[in-house]
């Protein structure tokens, strides 16, 4: 059984910078996978190596089982990439751009699929408009369509929502989710961690060219064990709850809540001590906290 993407010990160096340091992981068919990391972590370099835009110094990458160096043609046919930079050819209209892109992949008569892409991405009324006349968000949609003209089973989106308005982000995600539901494997890099948290099932984190975490999203979040309960009480915190106390903040007691079932115990202790709860809120760990912790060298 082949993987959708298989990356084996891939390294790449630019002069004194080790951009990728022996990266290995696989992405399975139909996964919605997030690749996260700060600027300069090596995400785009890794995507470039997958797409054949740059060449790894060592290691190998396979897309749907096809080696990106020795089976270039097959590997490229299986991969659709939405590059990070907003780029376009100012000479052509949206439809010309997509028809040419289809032709580069050897596909003739792609009008029906191009029309569908235009429709799905809200570009139908812009089909005959020159690329120069489009807003940044619209250009970004065309780039998504360009990555999909050859119906690739694996789609990589490198920061697709950077600088894009909320409405487009939502419609873009709805479309990408639809593609994922239809069986496409999606790899996403983003700075908006809530997007990765909401969409992706597995998350890889990179820092300085190395892979520092690779987990199922729920495992990653639960391992950080940072769930907290914030309580405003009518009296002092009972002694039995002191071991859970993390800190006091604005007159509230913040207690660690390693397990949500523990909440019932906290409340019953308070009842026994005749302390009234005036306000209660539970804070779940989010990906952002995990991310910040990992990037600062912390262990989960």
């Amino acid at each position, binding site marked *: 059984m082949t993987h959708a993407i298989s990356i084996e010990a891939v390294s790449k160096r*630019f002069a004194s910078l080790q951009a990728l340091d022996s990266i290995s992981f696989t992405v399975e068919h139909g996964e919605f996978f997030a690749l996260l990391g700060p600027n300069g972590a090596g995400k785009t370099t890794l995507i*470039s190596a997958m*797409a*054949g*835009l*740059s*060449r790894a110094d060592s290691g190998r990458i396979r897309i749907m089982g096809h080696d990106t160096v020795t089976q*270039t*043609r097959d590997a*490229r*046919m299986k*991969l659709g*990439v939405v*590059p990070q*930079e907003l*780029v*376009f*050819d*100012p*000479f*052509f209209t949206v439809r*010309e751009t997509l028809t*040419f*892109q*289809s*032709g*580069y*992949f*050897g*596909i*003739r008569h792609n009008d029906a699929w191009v029309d569908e892409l235009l429709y799905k991405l809200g570009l139908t009324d812009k089909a005959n408009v020159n690329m120069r006349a489009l807003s940044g968000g619209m250009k970004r949609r065309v780039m998504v369509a*360009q*990555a999909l003209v*050859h119906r690739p089973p694996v789609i990589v989106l490198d920061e697709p929502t950077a600088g894009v308005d909320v409405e487009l982000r939502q419609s873009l995600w709805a479309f990408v989710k639809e593609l994922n539901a239809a069986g496409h494997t999606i790899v996403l890099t983003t700075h908006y961690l809530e997007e990765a948290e909401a969409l992706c099932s597995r998350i890889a984190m990179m820092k300085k060219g190395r892979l520092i975490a690779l987990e199922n999203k729920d495992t990653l979040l639960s391992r950080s064990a940072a769930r907290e309960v914030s309580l405003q009480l009518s009296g002092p915190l009972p002694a039995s709850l002191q071991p859970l106390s993390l800190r006091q903040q604005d007159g509230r007691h913040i207690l660690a809540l390693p397990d949500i079932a523990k909440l019932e115990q906290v409340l019953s202790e308070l009842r026994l001590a005749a302390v009234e709860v005036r306000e209660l809120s539970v804070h779940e760990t989010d990906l952002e906290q995990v991310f910040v912790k990992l990037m600062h060298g912390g262990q989960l």
Partner: protein
Amino acid sequence: MYGFITLFKKEILRFWKVGFQTVMAPVLTALLYQLIFSHVLSQHVEAYPGVSYTAFLIPGLAMMSMAQNAFANSSSSLIQSKITGNIVFLLLPPISAPAFFGAYLLASVVRGLVVGAGVLLVTAWFGLPLPAQPLWLLAFAVLGCGVLGTLGIMAGIWADKFDQLAAFQNFLIMPLTFLSGVFYSINSLPPLWRSVSHLNPVFYMIDGFRYGFFGQADVSPWLSLAVVGGCFVALSLWVMRLIASGYKLRH
């Protein structure tokens, strides 16, 4: 194969959409050269026996315009794609190095031929005869554009900024084309400069192209064909290798 056809079509459409700049402007420039030089020099020079300077000048101007525009087509398209970043859309699909090279080359040849035809059309009334050797004419037109189109691909891939490309164009291509016998027969030059001119491949393009019109030239058309053809083959192989290696395109 379809990738090649598509890229070729795209390149044709690209220059055609800005036809005023890419076709009309060089045709007008050549017409101005023709008007001025023929006015100034027609009384004084007879380049070949029985060929007036005015008629002599036309094929040279046409070939020079073809060469410069074939170079400009591939080089400017590539550097624009590189600088704006949209070259990525050509690097992501599985377009082979020969297809990539062939499409840019052929589009350059087409642009060169269209400009050449335009120049001949607007200057013919200065007394251009019908071609004495049409096949030679066509061979030198196509090969000449091919050599410069290939050089354009090389320059477009090599240059990282417009300034470098302009340097290539102004310090190499322009002197080679201007000092190639466009405006004079090299037989009128002192021996030293005549010998130097023989080292310039553009001279052979122009001389061969002129042979196509007048049936006479400064050197044998076979020699010109060998030089121009040899340059074309050597440059093509080299540039195709550059593309296949990913030089300056894939990092």
